[in-house]
């Protein structure tokens, strides 16, 4: 069976008005996602993770171009689809939750109107039916007293409630895939825990596939089956969560994992990553991480590393990691994609 979503060598560039400058925001990114699976896409600001998410739905700003690759969703290439067809996919088969719920809700419409809207548009539901569904959806995302709340406006709700309403809009047409871009950054800890639990329940109930775009490895550890690490527009490592947390192959992933304070060993010194993330418009030659990499060899400065298998369904773009693999006989034998 083919996967629910298969992204192959996707490239998205930002081009200035005269076409003089090109920024490779997403560069040769490939990954797959099975139905009901959860993928975490981690990266820092400017790593291209949000551009990647937007390009899956073709919601890119005008300066951005998809310059190559495929986004196969349920067997169809979304990159080649006409805009008209995309409208039947957005919000219906693929839904998205953004970081700031206040920015994604319209302050002038009631919550009920906004939750009912996708049902009215995509399923041509009658007003009455759509409202009845909206109340059910609000109940399913744990909004207390949904009968009263449907008639209220976003400003009358707390941040956690607003984000749950955005979640209700997201699942209203029972999509196959939900993309959540930093969905809990604006929420308090206990509210974040509530929300992540809710997403997990919705996922189980509807067999949803989830993509989490986040900079927080904690969310990945808690929620995801697979993780993809982005650095300077490239997917530098991807694989099963446990494999990546236990045996990170790319020095960037390893450094990220080591730089995070852990609850268990307080007051132990953190391993800091020197330097700072590169400017995408002025990327270093070779591997973009080499100026910050403790293991860099000459080859890293000259040539960009290709994706190589380091374990079962676990890939990394790193010359050093790749050479470790070939030195270990037998390691490649089981390293086959399923």
């Amino acid at each position: 069976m083919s996967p629910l979503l298969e992204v192959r060598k996707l490239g998205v560039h930002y081009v200035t008005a005269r076409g003089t400058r090109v920024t490779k925001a997403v560069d040769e990114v490939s990954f797959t996602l099975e139905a009901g699976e959860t993928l975490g896409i981690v990266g820092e600001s400017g790593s291209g993770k949000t551009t990647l998410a937007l390009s899956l739905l073709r919601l890119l700003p005008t300066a951005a171009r998809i310059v190559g690759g495929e986004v196969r969703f349920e067997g169809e290439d979304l990159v080649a689809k006409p805009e008209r067809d995309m409208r039947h996919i957005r919000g219906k088969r693929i839904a998205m939750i953004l970081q700031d719920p206040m920015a994604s809700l319209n302050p002038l419409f009631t919550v009920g109107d906004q939750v009912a809207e996708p049902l009215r548009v995509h399923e041509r539901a009658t007003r009455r039916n759509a409202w009845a569904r909206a109340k059910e959806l609000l109940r399913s995302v744990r909004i207390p007293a949904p009968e009263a709340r449907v008639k209220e406006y976003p400003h009358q709700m707390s941040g956690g409630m607003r984000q749950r309403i955005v979640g209700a809009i997201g699942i209203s047409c029972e999509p196959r895939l939900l993309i959540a871009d930093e969905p809990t950054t604006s929420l308090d800890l206990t509210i974040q825990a509530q929300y992540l639990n809710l997403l997990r329940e919705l996922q189980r109930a509807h067999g949803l596939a989830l993509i989490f775009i986040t900079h927080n490895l904690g969310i990945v550890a808690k929620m995801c089956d697979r993780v993809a690490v982005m650095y300077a527009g490239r997917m530098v490592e991807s694989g099963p969560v446990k494999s990546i947390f236990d045996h990170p192959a790319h020095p960037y992933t390893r450094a990220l994992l080591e730089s995070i304070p852990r609850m268990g060993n307080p007051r132990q010194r953190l391993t800091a990553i020197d330097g700072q993330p590169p400017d995408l418009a002025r990327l270093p030659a070779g591997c973009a991480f080499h100026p910050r990499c403790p293991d860099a060899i000459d080859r890293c400065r000259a040539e960009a590393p290709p994706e190589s298998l380091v374990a079962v369904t676990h890939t990394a773009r790193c010359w050093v990691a790749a050479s470790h693999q070939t030195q270990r006989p037998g390691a490649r034998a089981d390293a086959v994609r399923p």
Partner: protein
Amino acid sequence: MATPVIEAKNLSKLFPVKGGFFGRGAGVVRAVDDVSFSVMPGQTLGLVGESGCGKTTTAKLVLGLEEPTGGSMRFEGQDLQSMDAAGRRHYRKSVQAVFQDPFASLNPRMRVGAIIAEPLVTNEVLPATEVKKRILHLLELVGLPERAADLFPHEFSGGQRQRIAIARSLALSPRLVVLDEPVSALDVSIRAQILNLLRDLQAQLGLSYLFIAHDLAAVAHMSHTIAVMYLGKIAETGEAAALSQRPKHPYTQALFSAALPSHPDERREEIILPGEVPSPLRPPAGCRFHPRCPHVMPRCATEVPVLKPQESRLVSCHLFD
């Protein structure tokens, strides 16, 4: 025992809410309500809690940006209220702050050297050469090159800007630095650099920190003592490692169980609290946490619990009476 750098006793800050919008009954927000804590020399007190719990107001009280409504604060043993003008001046120089967003806290029209020197220029009379020397020393302390002094803030990344803000906070050789979410605006790979720098500076200069952050692991990592606040009151306070690993108060337990794991295998008992933090305008009677508490008892709705010693820490909960 050493004298605490800062010692707050029964500190309160009430904000009157003007009537009108909520009807005639103009209320008061008890942003900080009967809170006591102390920060020892060279140590870090971590302040955690969710939005509206009063941690920022507490920081403002410590910084002297708000006047307390009640209670007292002592700085190195001296009562702030009875201090004369010179004493207050000395106090304000000794307590400095680093804020969350280094893009907002640095004046874009000033050169970095001038930014760092500003506290010196306004508070002390120094010859220009001495100021210059101090700037270079401060830049070195925070790991920035000398030439940084002649550049503007926009020429630096977020992590470097936060270093500039830290250098400025150290210009007057303070005793206590209030760190209000000092790394949450920074990229993940940069945070460890800044946390390490803060720890090094503490060891080198004997600084005390009041560390405020959402990230519980970062607070546990940085702090010697942690105080957990809920709706203006301290729910639990104690030694950082013990408190973060074996929280006692039901709210602390829920808060730390909501902290994200650092490894996919790390499964801890999840306590999902119902509802949200109530409005501080109308806090619940009795224990303020009781409407969300999984262990609520009848007396919690009527009796206000007080902080009581409980295995090397203070807990404010009727469960331990």
